[in-house]
């Protein structure tokens, strides 16, 4: 009896603050949970079926636990995890809105979930219709002509978009080298540019937090393949000179790529296509309320203007008569996913759009912007905005006054918020803002919750003055206290089998 007990709940925050043993620590040789159906298939020994040279000497050791112990373990892990369903998650750039349970039911529908991806189109007309319906709606929302639903997340969408850019230029015999990115951009943008085979040229923001149009003009040239922008940008500010930017980029033959991570701000109000963008990716797991799953799955469809439609990845579901079929665009860049994309995420998004309709989506954007601006104003005395004017769905604030006065940094504020019952905002992003705290309240949080958040920050400000040391030690009420990140990086222990330092 040397294994750890799996019926003890002291690791559940309800009961205590112990560590939870790993699955491997509760494993006992000989236990099992699995039950399989009776098949009556002749049970020939594996060695008769497969040359023994291929067989492992011993089966891989997984873990050996009872169903009861598995349930206890995983349920306790879940109690050690914050989530939207537990409370507010004002993570800037992440759009952690409420995820309707209805969409979970959609994704669990066996009519959708139990379909094999290689089943012939004649037997999967419903799924093809889902894809076509969604593509059409996403095009309507973004003001584009056609879309691919294959990319599995935002970054995958970006890279797809860059490959579309490349294919477009190459189809015109046009070799271009650089892609322009504002200094406020999300890290996936430059990383994708590299993988797209381009060099990054960073364009600075001006003192209004927007792309510096003159600086942009300065770096534009015939070797520029395009520009990647989010609008609103990662500061939460709308690029007011977008028309001029678009004209300047188009003038040198470049394309405009829209990073749709912030689309929630402008649904039904402004469309990327109308702003002059040629390529748009969307994060369905942000704007269209797919739950984040602790870090995926998401979906990052890419919509394009008509002149790029021929290059889209394929195959794509398309209408054919009264039905649907698969077709690959004539100059397709090829597949970007093993199958058709994160299909169940796509179905969720379509259901979300069905429920909201045109007017509902617009209201979503308006209220997201309302919440962010209210919060910006409400917190102005403690955490001034990096740019104190109308923001969009998120606001980038600064902890500099607290740092200057008491040595309390953005990180301390973030950790102290955990003790107050709120997830932290995004910190130290975008990189161009000192002591950045980026709040994105989303439209599904109520004014009462925003006010409670503001009051929590007021209390933290008081603590900063009276007990800055205490703030450096926060959080204390959580299952573990501040975690030693440096130690983790110094001695990597990435599996239960790794040697311990």
């Amino acid at each position, binding site marked *: 009896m040397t294994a750890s007990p799996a019926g003890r709940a002291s690791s559940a925050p309800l009961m205590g*603050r112990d560590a939870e043993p790993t699955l491997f620590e509760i494993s006992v040789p000989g*236990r*099992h949970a699995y039950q399989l*159906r009776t098949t*009556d*298939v002749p049970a020939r020994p594996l060695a008769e*079926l*497969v*040359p023994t040279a291929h067989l492992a000497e011993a089966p891989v050791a997984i873990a050996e636990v009872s169903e009861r112990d598995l*349930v206890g373990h*995983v349920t306790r892990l*879940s109690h050690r*995890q*914050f989530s939207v369903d537990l409370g507010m998650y004002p*993570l800037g750039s*992440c759009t952690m809105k409420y*995820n*309707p349970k209805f969409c979970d039911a959609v994704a669990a529908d066996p009519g*959708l979930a*139990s379909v*094999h991806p290689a089943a*012939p189109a004649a037997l999967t007309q419903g799924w093809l219709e889902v894809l076509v319906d969604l593509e059409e709606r996403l095009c309507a*929302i973004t003001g584009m002509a056609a879309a691919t639903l294959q990319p*599995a997340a935002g970054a*995958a969408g970006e*890279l797809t978009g860059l*490959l579309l850019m490349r*294919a477009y230029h190459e189809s015109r015999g046009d070799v271009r080298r650089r892609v322009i990115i504002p200094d406020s951009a*999300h*890290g*996936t943008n430059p990383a994708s540019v*590299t993988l797209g085979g381009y060099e990054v040229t960073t364009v600075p923001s001006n003192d209004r937090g927007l792309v510096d149009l003159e600086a942009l003009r300065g770096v534009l040239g015939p070797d520029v393949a395009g520009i990647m922008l989010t609008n609103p940008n990662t500061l939460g500010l709308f690029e007011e000179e977008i*028309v001029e930017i678009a004209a300047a980029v188009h003038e040198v033959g470049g394309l405009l790529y829209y990073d749709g991570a912030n689309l929630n701000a402008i649904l*039904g*109000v*402004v469309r990327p296509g109308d702003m002059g963008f040629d390529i748009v990716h969307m*994060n369905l797991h942000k704007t269209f309320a797919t739950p984040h*799953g*602790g*870090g*995926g799955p998401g979906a990052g469809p890419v919509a394009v203007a008509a002149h790029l439609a021929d290059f889209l990845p394929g195959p794509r579901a398309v209408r054919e008569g009264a039905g649907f079929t698969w077709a690959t665009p004539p100059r397709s860049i090829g597949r970007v*996913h093993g*199958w058709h994309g994160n*299909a*169940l995420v796509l*179905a969720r998004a379509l*259901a979300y759009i*069905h*429920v909201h309709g045109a007017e509902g989506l617009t209201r979503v954007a308006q209220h997201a912007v*309302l919440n962010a601006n*209210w919060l910006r*104003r409400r917190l102005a005395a403690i955490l001034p905005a990096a740019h104190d004017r*109308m923001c969009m769905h998120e606001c980038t604030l600064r902890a500099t006054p607290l740092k200057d006065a008491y040595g309390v940094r953005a990180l301390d504020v973030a950790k102290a918020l955990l003790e107050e019952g709120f*997830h932290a905002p995004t910190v130290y992003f975008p990189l161009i803002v000192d002591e950045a705290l980026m709040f994105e309240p989303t*439209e599904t949080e109520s*004014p009462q919750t925003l006010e409670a958040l503001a009051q929590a920050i007021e209390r933290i400000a008081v603590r900063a003055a009276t007990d800055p040391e205490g703030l450096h030690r926060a959080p204390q009420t959580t299952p*573990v206290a501040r975690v030693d*990140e440096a130690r983790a990086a110094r001695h990597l222990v990435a*599996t239960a*089998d790794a040697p311990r330092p």
Partner: protein
Amino acid sequence: MADYLPHTPEEVATMLALVGVDSLEGLYAHVPSAVRLAGGLDLPAGVSEPDAAALVAGYGARNGARASELVCFAGAGAYDHEVPPVVRALAGRSEFVTAYTPYQPEVAQGVLQAIFEYQTLVARLAGLPIANASLYDGATALVEALNMAHGATGRSRMLVSSGVHPHWRAVARTFAAGTGHEVVEVPLVGGRTDWSGLDPEGVAAVVVAYPNYLGVLEDPAEAKALAESVGALLVVAGDPVAAGVLRSAGSWGADVFVGEGQPFGTALSFGGPYLGLFACAEDQVRRLPGRIVGETLDTEGRRAYVTTLRAREQDIRREKATSNVCTNQTLMAVTAAIQLGWLGTAGLREVATRCAQGAHYLFDELVGLEGVTPVTTEPFFREFALRLRRPAREVIARLAQEGILAGVALEALVGPGDRSIDAPEDVLLVAVTERRTRAEIDHYVAAMRGALQ
């Protein structure tokens, strides 16, 4: 119209007052009117959830190929395995489902520890010391492996067996347009890779599938020898269920293992969300794509988990990152860890064994039929390819009428001129999982006999 907004009109008015505008539209006053949308989105009006549910049910009803309706013998990287209610219940817990990426470890130990357990399991299956926290799917995991090989060797030539899933090869080709990699697809001859006559000079990676997409158990030692001869990385693309009983990628000398993790608790889902498995040797860890969770301590000395080696990642390294991946497939990784916990050592072995038993039983029965010839006589594991005397497409349509999804028509899987197979129109790829009963298999055989008459 429905929505999930809490705001009452009075609250909106109060809030607008603080903000200093007098209407919701006023929040957008600084947006140039030239780009503002007049007249609203061109979308149907919103409907209530129950109305939308009826629409969704309609889509579902128009799918004839639900595994609940057709007995599934299709595979090609997506398998109909048992997913028990207990796994669905646990993986569906809202703390996992509605959490963000664990940026604040103090309140994210649940997801972090689950990923740590997942990493351990993937590493064990791969026979390699390090695994990451997941990638999008098997195909994109392969792309990341090629990128890693490029980073490790500074070279750009990739020898990819044509036994690798055709879609994965297609994805590798797509992304090679950006990275500039030269992807050389090495032909299959008689169902196995013909590595002969290749110039291994300047090769960054040698990629072999194990088993390959036709089900064949190739000899990874050949690929290893080739890779070793030039200091290239050996990448094994493996079926993780077969990995439960086969020699591990690591034991064959692989530097990288990639796989499609769907068989571990994820429904067929029309192809996604799935799960890209990725494991590698110790010396590649600084080039690892995506997130990795490490064990550490909190300030009070308690064991804790945290995402680590962040300096590889795009949010820190930006254009120099090892990969651009950010959001990945965590929920599927957590699901896989739970499903593997449910299976345990014996269960995984049993599932793998039953797959092989079912596949061989069906194979033996089918090759006895007139009009059926095996594509190869090589050993296979749980999947096999048959050449039929009628187009596979037609056979699939016929068997669907008898309640069977007969497999995957190779013609639909491979592009024109694929170097893995000739005349793919006649070839049917058939997979068997532990869920298939003898009665179902016998029914399949009878139906096939009828279809080929």
